[in-house]
């Protein structure tokens, strides 16, 4: 199993954003000032158990949804398409992290994405995390290894 550090995680997320939702973003060090609007996670199990958590503001969600649908951000309903795109990004980024961890013959099983409270997506010590800023907002992505007890919670 290989490791996924913050730089690798950033690369995986940037690739997913550029290819799937046509959003260009840059990693930033400072915490975002706009309030978080949505969060989602996908869990997986295999060599290790883990989860990938995504959290973003409404501006980013609308920009990403619009990019996927080929429309303008102000034509997108943040609570509908904006919410849905974060679920799908959790699915896609989770899949990318799993492949990076385990390669093409990995034994991981990925769970379906779940919507979670934004507070539950906050990084904790030991997590690998990256924050990206796009034209209209921000998104934080965290990958967290779970022990068996936490995974079952």
């Amino acid at each position, binding site marked *: 199993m290989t490791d996924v550090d913050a730089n690798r995680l950033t690369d995986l997320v940037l690739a997913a954003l550029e290819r*799937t939702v046509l959003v260009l973003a840059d990693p930033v060090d400072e915490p975002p000032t706009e309030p978080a609007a949505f969060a989602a996670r996908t869990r997986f199990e295999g060599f290790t158990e883990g989860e990938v958590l995504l959290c973003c503001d409404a501006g980013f969600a609308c920009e990403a949804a619009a990019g*996927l*649908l080929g429309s303008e951000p102000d034509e997108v309903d943040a609570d509908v398409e904006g919410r*849905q795109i974060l679920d*799908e990004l959790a*699915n896609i980024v989770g*899949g*990318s992290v799993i492949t990076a961890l385990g390669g*093409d013959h990995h034994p991981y099983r990925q769970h*379906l994405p779940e919507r979670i409270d934004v507070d539950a997506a906050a990084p904790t010590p030991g997590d690998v995390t990256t924050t990206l800023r796009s034209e209209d907002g921000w998104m934080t992505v965290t990958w967290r290894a779970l022990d068996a007890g936490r995974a079952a919670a």
Partner: protein
Amino acid sequence: MHPNILIVDDSPILRSCIRKVARVAGFTDDHIFEASNGEEALEVLGMVKTDLVLLDINMPVMDGETFAGEVRKRPDIAGIDIVVVSTEANEDRLDRLRDLGVLEVLHKPFEPEDLVRIMARITGNAKEKAA
């Protein structure tokens, strides 16, 4: 006769996206059908003569691998072309799907142009078969 296409994905926004790509590939809305899991997709296949299924793998109720297995068991629909569009990258699982006759695997994140190319090629073959 214009071929029919079935999009099977539990993500509504992904289905919308693929529908838009299908329009670019020349499909009109009355030839594009949707299902949110394998079970719904089997119901659609029972009602609509379908030429191509674009199939996600990780879905609730019935996943894509189970769906593909069910399709191959049913003589009336066993010959339908299936293309997987999924985050799934486990080659062992993808090999099982290829053994079930899946023609191509398109990994998410994908370039819309790649999907257009696949749809055009496969449905072009369907048109030739129907002619």
